[in-house]
């Protein structure tokens, strides 16, 4: 009992790391986070002045120290306040944690980075890390609290989960690890907590094809997303795809529409970021927390709001 009280008293607080996609492409995800976390007792800090993580095609492709320096500035924003960062984008999660791992593993990189940071009066000691929203919800908030907080449940709804690559690999660099990085459970558990069926499907861990592949060769990128979608359709005929990555969200949402127009697929499965789905279940305004999409979501949202009232 005593330990529980102590746990209660320790207020959860994270720096909300937005990244580019969520800031500009999918601000409804940002809005969803701004709604759900305070309601779940998690304080969020804006980390004013944060920048791009940096994403893979930028500094990581130029130079490791440069990559780490940009990442370290972002991480330092949290470290200064004694909090960890939290992101809803797998790319940011990957880039920040890989950079941190490199700095911790190699003191030479760390010291070069700090030489650069010193020029703007900052330093990074490796303490602050970047957490993933899915892990914060799963581990820090907890499934019980999520279950208690929802107004609508997903009874009878089958979701296909898409945790995304940077949620899993390389497991070495991440602060939280799936017990089996080839059979991830966290997102499935999170969806089940909302009352949904979240079955395994064969290509659950396959890449959606987003990222550099998409910008380099969209056609090839669509091969992957199509394989994935078809597997979802055939094996579990999901009502909804749920992801915890902003890149996967954009790819699955956008590409589906394109594939349908080209006649390559003949179905449509709405796609939501998990924080959006949770926000809807918690009763927040769908227009605000899930208002931006290409593949229509209205129907599934309606089904949730009408069918799943608790």
């Amino acid at each position, binding site marked *: 009992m005593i330990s529980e009280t102590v746990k209660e008293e320790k207020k959860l607080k994270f720096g909300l790391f937005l990244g580019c996609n969520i800031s500009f492409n999918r601000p409804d995800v940002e809005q969803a986070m701004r709604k759900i976390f305070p309601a779940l007792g998690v304080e969020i800090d804006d980390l004013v002045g944060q920048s791009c993580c940096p994403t893979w095609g930028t500094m990581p492709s130029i130079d490791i120290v440069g990559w780490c320096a940009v990442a370290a500035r972002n991480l330092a924003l949290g470290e200064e306040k004694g909090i960890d960062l939290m992101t809803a984008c797998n790319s940011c999660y990957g880039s920040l944690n890989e950079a941190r791992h490199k700095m911790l593993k190699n003191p030479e990189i760390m010291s070069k980075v700090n030489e650069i940071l010193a020029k703007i009066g900052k330093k990074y000691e490796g303490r602050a890390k970047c957490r993933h929203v899915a892990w914060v919800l799963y581990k820090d908030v907890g499934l019980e609290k999520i279950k208690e907080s929802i107004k609508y449940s997903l009874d009878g709804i089958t979701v296909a989960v898409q945790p995304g690559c940077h949620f899993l690999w390389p497991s070495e660099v991440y602060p939280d690890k799936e017990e089996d990085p080839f059979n991830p459970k966290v997102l499935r558990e999170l969806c089940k907590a909302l009352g949904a069926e979240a079955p395994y499907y*064969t290509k659950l*861990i396959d890449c959606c094809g987003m990222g550099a592949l998409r910008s380099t060769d969209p056609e090839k990128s669509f091969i992957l997303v199509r394989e994935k979608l078809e597997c979802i359709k055939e094996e579990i005929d999901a009502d909804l795809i749920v992801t915890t990555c902003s890149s996967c969200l954009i790819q699955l949402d956008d590409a589906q529409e394109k594939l349908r127009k080209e006649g390559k697929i003949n179905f449509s499965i709405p796609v939501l970021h998990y924080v959006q789905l949770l926000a809807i279940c918690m009763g927040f305004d769908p227009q605000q927390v899930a208002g931006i999409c290409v593949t229509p979501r209205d129907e599934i949202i309606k089904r949730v709001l009408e069918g799943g009232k608790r």
Partner: protein
Amino acid sequence: MPKIGVYICHCGENIAGAVNIEEVKKFVEKLPDVVVVRDYLFMCSDPGQEIIKEDIRKGLVDRVVVAACTPRTHEPIFRKACEDAGLNKYYFEMANIRDQCSWAHWHEKEKATQKAKQLIAAAVAKARLLEPLEDRYVELNKNVMVVGGGIAGIFAALDLANAGFKVYLVEKSPSIGGNMAKLDKTFPTNDCSACILTPLMVEVANHPNVELLTYSEVEAVEGTVGNFRVKVRKKQTYVDWEKCTGCGACVNVCPPKARVPDEFNEGLSLRGAIYIQFPQAVPKKAVIDPDACISCSGRWFGEEPRRTKDGKPILAPCEKVCPTGACSRDEPRDPNGEIIELNVGSIIVATGYRVMDKKYFKEFAPDSPNVITALQMERLISATGPTEGKLIVPSDIPKYLDWKKKVEKGKEAKLEARKPHVITFVSCVGSRDERYHTYCSKVCCMYMLKQAMLLKEKYPDLDIYIFFIDVRTPGKDFDEYYMRCRKLGIKIIKGKVGGVQRLPDERLLVRGYDADLGKPVELISDIVVLATAIEPNTDLKDLARKLGINVGAEGFLRERHTKLYPVDTMTEGIFICGCAQGPKDIPDSVAQAKAAASSAMSLLAPGKMRVEPLISEVNPEKCTGCGICAPLCPYGAIEYVEVDGKRRAKVNEAKCKGCGVCAAACPSKAITLHGFTYEQVLAQIKTIARKGIIEEV
């Protein structure tokens, strides 16, 4: 004044290729007390040794320094040469200018030459202080303990027993047989494993010179070569083996609740808490696994039985059904079993291997029942396996077992288990892998081919894929075996599998790579067989520690010398063979077992043995009886004797092994470790510290 001869070996090009011999000679000639310096192509060869002997015989030299390879292998050879020529063999010292000089500094020839000079100078400095010593002899006990009752242990025991030596064969399982007993057939001849192994098991068990100690483990080992004192724990069997006839009646009545995965079937089926390891077990006796037993009668050993209303005792099903009373629970049993003590002259370690569990390999969907290890596959196709050799997908084994139960009860039932159509083998799972074991497990290529061949010959319609990184088939008749597989239509793919994903119907999506096509490939398979690495048994390290032998970086027992002493260990009198030494196949294990047995024989046959006198000695004049040394000795070799009314330390020569801990600690420097005296080691150190300048004595 000592007359030192220095003999420098070229070792062909091995030394001369990096060390400038002429330059070294000029340097060495000037060293104090050096009277002769010679060099030769191979100093250890017969003519090379003759050079040394000649100088000794002529009286030119009375101390010998050989600068060559490592004293660990060659010191005995040169000592012998000195002795043969009439010089006390402890007037010999070696400078290691090959292993620790030319080889390591091959590309820095000038510096290697300088270093060689210093090493030789150090050896000369020590040589000036050498003292003549006399060898000792110890009596040897002619009994041998063989640890491990697999194919290697069985052969070692048989060879020794046939030669008239008494052998204690210690095996931790209830039966001997080891891993080979689990195999279906054996490559490259496809002999039935049981057919060739079982007769040997019986032979060794019945041999008058062999005492079989199964379900037993080595607890502690003391003593040295010729006189090891071993404590063996006979584990508690909970069944009276004197009375047990191995009829198996008890096994059948053990309740379903007390069932646990069957080790013999690699977890593919269940066994009861009371079990006989396998049908061909030797000895064929039942044991009770106390962790699995649920005491279904409500009574543990030595407890009063509960009684029915009419006062009849309630007995456990096993004790009730036992025709001989072997399973009786009337008497209490000590869970620690019994400790017995053995006196042996030599020990052979043949503890074998285990295969890695599939659970480590997350990328290969280990959760799926249809992903199995190769040893599980062996059980699946074996006639003594969980399905009596009937090939079905492992996920349907429970269905098979249900069906079998019904049929046994005389019910009519149809077996609805799925037969596989596609089987995929994955090589190098956990072998050649930095995350697990960097070594090659050696037998996987061949046993995958074997299993594929057995399957394909029996079920020609099966599609079999074997993913190899590369096919390794060195060995007699092995590559021919491989070609037979190809001709049978088994699909060999060069490239590793990177992922296995479960399909909803318990089939598996296999993602591999075909190096020949230069493309990723994928297929749907009913069974995926992982050739998981062979690794040392978990308790091998413990055992090695008890025995005082070395374990290599990869965890297998380390041989004294890879090439020259492959079954010897650094501890005299202890030999190793089989997979405890490293992964190997049956022919190699047997060959090594016979080598180990013959090594033990040639050691023990003379009945006594020469021991180097490189041990400690106390100078009673200098000893002040402080008593510091006695508790330090790991062998309890330091005793006290009365000298002029005072207690003085004395080393028991039979017990001392020459570590020198006492000499290093003695406050009055009364203890000398012969061969490594304070003055000798110090002379070496000073000489090197002064870059080759020897201090005048």
